[in-house]
């Protein structure tokens, strides 16, 4: 639809361009050599004023409608991109280059916006304007028309060449620029570490060298890439120069009247202009297409969690055990499996502690049970139902999770606690706070539970954040709870308080406790150890 509008506006603009040239030719020719005074050409001048006004209005419409339309398209794409990533790779977002996704969704799509707002309308003009001008020029002056017709394909060809060269150049520039930017961000974020190791000054050199190396490399490609624009510019200018010479000869031979000659000469640059403008917008096009391509790559990445076509109803972990059978998992791009063959049973109401050295995949076990990842082999069952046959969203409704580093979302404290159960009433909310040991914090805040959290607002310490996550789990009231190192970042006093909270949470729920503090693990019904990708030690059973 925006494209149709652009075509209509393009045709009207072209007609106005021709009208303007013809009228101006008649005014000038009337005065010289015609000898008319100002009053005798005033009629044409007033029509010219009207034409100019109409052109101005078209220019306005072109710009505004193009930008508004482009913004709509991009907004829709941004929404579907994030929805897709959330649906298919919820756990992958944190580990992959998170910055890349953000860059794509915000900056990359902005260049796509430029593509729709500037490049496409300009492309329409580049097609429509030459056609309309040719229709006028050919019957008037065959020779000039032929020159234009011959130069036009040259210009178009070089414009395409520019496009191709610019595309590779832009892709390279895009990647290298983001690489350079990442390099700089890395240095800035790690500056404290650099300073502690007396390397900050060296980093300055490195920034300088990297920038210089990039500059000299890119300039080599640009020197060649710009050659096509040189030829294009030359062809357009020469075209105008040749038209001038041709009409001059025809004038001398009296084969053409002067007013028409002026109009034809005026139209020559007007014919090339929109095509050259397309060339100028090529970077918008290539940046936009590159961004679009990256978006589609993201949309095409295979899902980390499969959703069955015909899902079975979700089993209830209160009615039967959660069982992992010879489960194997390897992270993409890492040859070795984190989990070789994990066998694990968690009975209803049981509190199981999973211990083991760090880096052995304890959190991966949690992610698998949470259905944030799919196992490469083996089965995961609950009450005899294969969890891969269940819609992950339905299964997750049975679960609560306290991750190692919980996320606080911007919003009030109560909104954060209500994450897992938005409809919970205030009584339940207060009870959850009490259970999680959050009461003291809430009381100390002037705005209590309605304290806004987030950037530029109140921030919480690691221990407080952990307790907010625990409160989420209490409020969620799910039959199966996964706690991942809930006291890892806490001092002794805080972890004792969190330990008490966990004990309360464990009443009448199945709990998988991933933990390294012996004090916490000791309270569990059973302790198993994960090492070398397998459960090596089930002796903790009582």
């Amino acid at each position: 639809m925006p494209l149709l509008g652009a075509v209509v506006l393009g045709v009207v603009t072209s007609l106005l361009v021709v009208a303007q040239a013809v009228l101006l030719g008649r005014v000038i020719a009337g005065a010289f050599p015609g000898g008319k005074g100002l009053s005798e050409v005033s009629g044409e001048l007033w029509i010219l004023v009207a034409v100019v006004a109409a052109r101005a209005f078209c220019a306005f419409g072109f710009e505004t409608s193009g930008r508004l339309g482009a913004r709509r398209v991009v907004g829709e794409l941004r929404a579907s991109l994030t929805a897709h990533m959330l649906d298919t790779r919820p756990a992958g977002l944190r580990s992959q280059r998170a910055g890349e996704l953000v860059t794509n969704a915000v900056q990359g799509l902005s260049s796509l916006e430029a593509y729709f707002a500037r490049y496409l309308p300009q492309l329409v003009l580049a097609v429509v304007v030459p056609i309309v001008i040719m229709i006028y020029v050919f019957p008037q002056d065959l020779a000039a028309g032929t020159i234009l017709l011959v130069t036009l394909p040259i210009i178009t060809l070089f414009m395409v060449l520019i496009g191709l060269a610019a595309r590779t150049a832009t892709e390279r520039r895009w990647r290298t620029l983001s690489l350079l930017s990442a390099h700089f961000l890395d240095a800035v974020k790690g500056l404290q570490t650099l300073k502690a190791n007396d390397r900050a000054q060296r980093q300055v050199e490195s920034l300088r060298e990297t920038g210089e190396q990039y500059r000299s490399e890119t300039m080599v490609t640009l020197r060649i890439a710009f050659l096509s624009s040189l030829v294009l510019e030359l062809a357009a200018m020469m075209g105008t120069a040749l038209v001038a010479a041709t009409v001059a000869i025809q004038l001398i031979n009296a084969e053409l009247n002067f007013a028409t000659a002026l109009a034809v000469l005026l139209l020559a640059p007007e014919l090339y202009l929109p095509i050259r403008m397309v060339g100028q917008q090529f970077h918008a096009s290539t940046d936009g297409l590159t961004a679009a391509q990256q978006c589609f790559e993201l949309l095409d990445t295979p899902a980390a969690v499969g959703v069955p076509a015909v899902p079975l109803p979700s089993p209830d972990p209160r009615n039967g055990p959660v069982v992992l059978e010879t489960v194997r998992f390897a992270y993409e791009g890492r040859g070795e499996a984190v989990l070789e063959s994990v066998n694990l049973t968690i009975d209803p109401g049981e509190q199981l502690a999973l211990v083991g050295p760090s880096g052995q995949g304890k959190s991966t076990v949690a992610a698998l049970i949470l259905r944030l990842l799919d196992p490469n082999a083996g089965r995961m069952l609950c009450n005899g139902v294969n969890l891969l046959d269940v819609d992950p969203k339905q299964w997750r409704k049975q679960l609560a999770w306290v991750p190692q580093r919980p996320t606080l979302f911007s919003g009030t404290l109560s909104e954060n606690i209500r994450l897992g159960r938005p409809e919970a009433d205030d009584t339940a909310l207060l009870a959850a706070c009490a259970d999680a040991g959050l009461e003291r914090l809430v009381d100390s805040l002037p705005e209590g539970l309605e304290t806004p959290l987030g950037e530029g607002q109140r921030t919480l310490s690691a221990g407080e954040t952990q307790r907010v996550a625990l409160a989420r789990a209490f409020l969620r009231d799910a039959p199966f709870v996964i706690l991942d190192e809930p006291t890892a970042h806490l001092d002794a006093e805080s972890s004792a308080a969190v330990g008490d909270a966990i004990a309360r949470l464990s009443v009448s729920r199945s709990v998988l406790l991933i933990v390294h503090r012996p004090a916490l693990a000791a309270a569990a019904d059973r302790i198993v150890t994960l090492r070398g990708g397998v459960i090596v030690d089930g002796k903790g059973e009582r």
Partner: protein
Amino acid sequence: MTTTQSPVSKADRWGALERAARLVRPRRGQLVLSIVLGAGAILAAVALLAVAGVLISKAALRPQILTLALFTVGVRALAIARALLRYCERLVSHDLAFRVLADLRVRFFERLIPLVPEGLRGIRSGDVLSRFVGDVDTLQDLYLRALGPPLIALLAIVVLAGAVAIVLPAAAAVLVVAMLFAGLLLPVIAARAGRSSGLREAPARAQLSSELVELVSGAAELAVYGREQQWAERLESADSQLAATERPGAWISGITSGVGVAIGGAAMVAVAAIGVQATASGQLDGVLLAGIVFLTIGAFEAVVGLPDAAQRLTACAQAAARLERVTEAPIPVSDPPIPVPVPEGGSLTFENVSVVFDDREQAALRDVSAALAPGSRIALVGASGAGKTTLASCAVRFLDPSSGRVTLGGTDIRELSQDALRSAVRLVSQEAYLFTTTIAQNVRLAAPEASDEQIIAALSRAGLGAWIASLPEGIETLVGEEGAEVSGGQRGRIALARGLIAQSQIVILDEPTANLDAAGARDLLSAIGSERSDPRAMLVITHTVEGLDQFDEIIVLDAGAIVERGTWGDLIASDGALARLSAAA
């Protein structure tokens, strides 16, 4: 509201912009060259049209064809000149852009160096640093796209108006007035009209960006709690809010472009009318009439880019002002005028060190004294917030004590150069950062000359030997963005390896056990306490106390003051603070 979000005053912005422009002053020669080339390209194109107009006007009088030869050759020469000038201008200006970007990064990084970490207390979040990097990127446009176009336009207009004034002064006046409207007034009015929406746009964009960051980092939790839909909607609403703030901009830019066309057209009509009148009255030679009108039409190429330049100028000014907010924080510590050489083999001694932060009532450290003799193993324990990290910061002069002093081999460390001090006293911070490169490069940071074998040895001492051996690419494995591909425990141990490999006199390890399980933490601390082949003094800051029995001294800190000190045996026997910490674990 943080200070970074409050609006920036006008004076601030333009002052900051001027200072930012000065940063790249050494590139002035190249800028002038690119401006002359750019103006030359515009003038060649305009001259081509004007000469072509004169050419056919003469032809209309049907002279001998040879009398026009000069003009036909001139038109072609101008065509070639235009193309070449443009090509050169693009090369020069792109080259300049790259150089300026590198310059700016270096300059701003250099300014950041003395501020980190204490000078940026409170604004150290990753978000601020990311914005810092983004603002530096914005400033690269300053010379090329913000200052270049107006200067090119100015040069071109002066030459063109001068040329027209020779034959028809009234037309020159129209041309100058129209150019001022199109090139100066219109961009300024558009910028002013767009400012309020632009000011709303920046926070809306930041809001969208932070919603996105939040969604990315919390995606797993949102999935588990079934809230993907709501957060997708939150993002959508942030996006449509951004769209709403962008809408006035679309209207303004449409109106600007329409009015620009109108001004150009009006000038064309006016010059044509003046020219017709002047021709009729004999003031103007008729063959020049077409030339003057054509020149007027062509001249507007000079001002086409100016509205965009005005926008960029504003963006650059805001970026420059935000950057100054960060970089103009007072520098917390500075080098002495004439640094003293670092003494060899002495003790690091804290003498009655107290630290009071401006923004806090309670002192962070109160009257703390301690000595690290060569080869000693000292542990500093206490709950979080007890002042342990502050003490470490004093030892490497990330900050200076409010009273008392720190000496190395008897010399006050304020008399040493900071770089030399940090080579001698190596701090492995709990916020140790892993750079987006290989494990080897991350360790080598602490000892640039270290061989692969030494790096592997250091990693093994840090407890990563088996893990490294299991990696197909060994120490050449990439750690991912900011170390995202390694676990928290591995990250801490890689940082520890940095401390172990460093050629320093003293090592301070701040929370080396932060991400380790209990057994790992105990083993690590015991190894440090008992392994005495390393002749350096080691200060270990920790909140886990198991494994400290071999340390020469344990200092327990609470609320900034030393509450007890002694060996493990003594302190456990006295049943004081350490005994309580030990029992709690």
